[in-house]
């Protein structure tokens, strides 16, 4: 009996050791980035090992005031505009698509599901050149809502998780409502929509963060400095501007991190429910 308890203590101790190591591994680079953003000198070469030798708010001030070459506030609002726009449109389209795919049986349903699966296997930016040509034809280069259009148009392809979620809502409620004379539109808006908060949160969050941190598409379509998103802008910084990069990163990572922490419960629920059947 005694030996058993000793093993248990050892087990607990070991578990906590691993947990502390894991926490350190995940936290350390973040801490490094945050501290670097408060460094007084700005260049990575003047650091003392991992951490800057003196701290100040100067970099953050510079980020928002010194906008001649690197117009961070402008980039920030471009990113916000694109991410918010595509979040609203994508969520709307994805949820509706997933709902119909889950609840309706029509002749084109299976073929459409197969087609989206096949389309999903093509490498994502194989079609970039074609998209670029298409956008020049439509005159949407250097237009922020051209990007929104592309993000929103592609979003319904990732409807599977959401469909899985709707599959788990029992259809018996729908039947009852139908007998009472509700139309399919009413069944969706009055019954299923209020039940699907977790999956809406999940969809909104993923479709917001994707444009928020995407790099390739904005780089391809937004050629002028004033239209840059934060990702493209930060990547155009040189190695000597490390503190500015860190400050800019921290500033756009903070809202996302907060969102994740507030919504993580909904997200995990949505993800797990959706994927079980997905």
């Amino acid at each position: 009996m005694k030996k058993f308890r000793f093993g248990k203590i050892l087990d607990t101790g070991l578990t906590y050791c691993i947990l502390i190591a894991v926490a350190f591994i995940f936290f350390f680079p973040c801490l490094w980035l945050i501290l670097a953003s408060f460094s007084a000198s700005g260049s990575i070469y003047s650091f003392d090992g991992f951490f800057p030798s003196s701290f100040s708010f100067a970099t953050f001030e510079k980020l928002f005031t010194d906008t001649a070459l690197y117009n961070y506030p402008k980039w920030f609002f471009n990113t916000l505009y694109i991410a918010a726009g595509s979040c609203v449109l994508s969520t709307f389209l994805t949820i509706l698509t997933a709902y119909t795919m889950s609840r309706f049986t029509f002749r084109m349903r299976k073929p459409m599901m197969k087609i989206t699966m096949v389309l999903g296997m093509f490498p994502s930016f194989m079609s970039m050149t074609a998209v670029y040509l298409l956008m020049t034809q439509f005159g949407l280069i250097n237009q922020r809502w051209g990007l929104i259009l592309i993000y929103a148009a592609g979003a319904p392809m990732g409807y599977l998780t959401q469909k899985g979620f709707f599959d788990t809502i029992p259809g018996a409620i729908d039947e009852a409502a139908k007998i009472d004379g509700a139309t399919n539109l009413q069944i969706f808006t009055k019954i299923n929509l209020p039940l699907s908060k977790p999956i809406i949160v999940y969809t909104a969050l993923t479709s917001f963060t994707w444009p928020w941190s995407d790099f390739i598409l904005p780089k391809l379509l937004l050629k002028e400095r004033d239209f840059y998103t934060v990702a493209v802008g930060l990547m155009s910084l040189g190695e000597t501007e490390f503190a500015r990069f860190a400050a800019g990163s921290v500033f756009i990572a903070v809202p996302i991190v907060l969102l994740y922490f507030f919504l993580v419960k909904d997200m995990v629920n949505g993800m797990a429910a959706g994927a079980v059947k997905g």
Partner: protein
Amino acid sequence: MKEKGKRFADCVRRSSWKVRLSAVVMGGGQFLYGRYFKGLLYFLTEIMILTYFILRGGADIAGFFTLGTVKGDAWLGTKGDNSVIMMLMGIFAWIVIGVWIILYIANLKDVWRSQRLEEAGRPQPKFREELSQLLDRKFYVTVLALPVIGVCVFNILPIVFMILIAFTNYGGTVVPPELVDWVGFSNFSKLVTLSQFAPTFFRILGWNLLWAAASTALNYFAGLGLALLLNKDCVKGKAFWRAFPILAYAIPGFITLVAFKFMFSYGGPINQIITSSGGTAIGFLGLDAKWTARLIGLLVNCWISVPSIMLLATGYLSNRDMSLYEAARIDGASPFQQFRKLTLPFMLFSTMPVLLGQFIGNFNNFGIFYFLRGGLYVDGYFLASDTDLLINWLYNLSIDNNYYCIGAAISLVIFLITSVLSLSVYVKSPSYREEDTYQ
């Protein structure tokens, strides 16, 4: 199929002249049955499509085959054909033809229904009723119209375009105003035989497969392990411990990658520590750092992907049937045996689709080496480095260096590999073969 043909023949034989009118002029039959609005709608669509084909669609279809015949010449001032735009608009014209055929069939079915209604002595449907059906019985038509159009224009059209590009000589010096031509499969044979492409192609392919397998396995087991660890009864304050991986998960990927690039760079903190303690700086991600760079890529990818797998696995673990574990404990199974015989099969079964998605995602993981070692060209590789995956090579070739047709051919190879692999794995997987084991 035979049944269908018989029914079709029956329709043709028994159809009234009104139905036959609709076969010639879309909407004509509906008009004569007293469904003026619907008839008019069909008629107007036909007029619109025909106008499109007379004005430009016909020429676009022709252009699709020829890809331009007149070469532009700045000296003579002739405005030549732009082959690429011609191909794009040609594909668009094909899509319009497809839509037309669908509408035409819908039109015939509609008017045939009208005839049968009349024969049965029932009233024709009112236009208003049919419209309100769009919010009820045919709700799905209304809802799916927008996504389908979007996917057609921004996904299917570009993908079809690139597939076709793989069979032309577009790229290199052959860009508009030069004329592009169809060349059949020669791009693919170039890829595997030409000394310019072939060695690079096979080296990158080998590394790409190794990378996908290694990183998927590593991420999966690390994520599962972490989830199991956090799930243990002895761990107090689970939310606190879980916060660290979530933090890593929430930070945008490009920030993480660039930060790690700085961390391992020549002037970065790790090298500073090494130099200050008397060593010489190591080029972790430098030109000749083949395996260290690969290893760093693997670990950094782990840092980025493990949290999401952990979250997912946590969700699944709570769905386990705990009575099985109770039984196993009574039978004297050790924790490791429980893991091997109960947890692992269950997790593999339920996360098989996720695992497949992870594998394909890692196979096409563009970001990792683009941000860690982007823009590096190494000896022995044609416009690529020794850590680049096929997708990075594709990017270097087609977006940075204008080798469009070779890039398109590589995309098709990637597509072939991922689809064949995932299909065969999926068919062999337990979640496909014994669907109700865990239900």
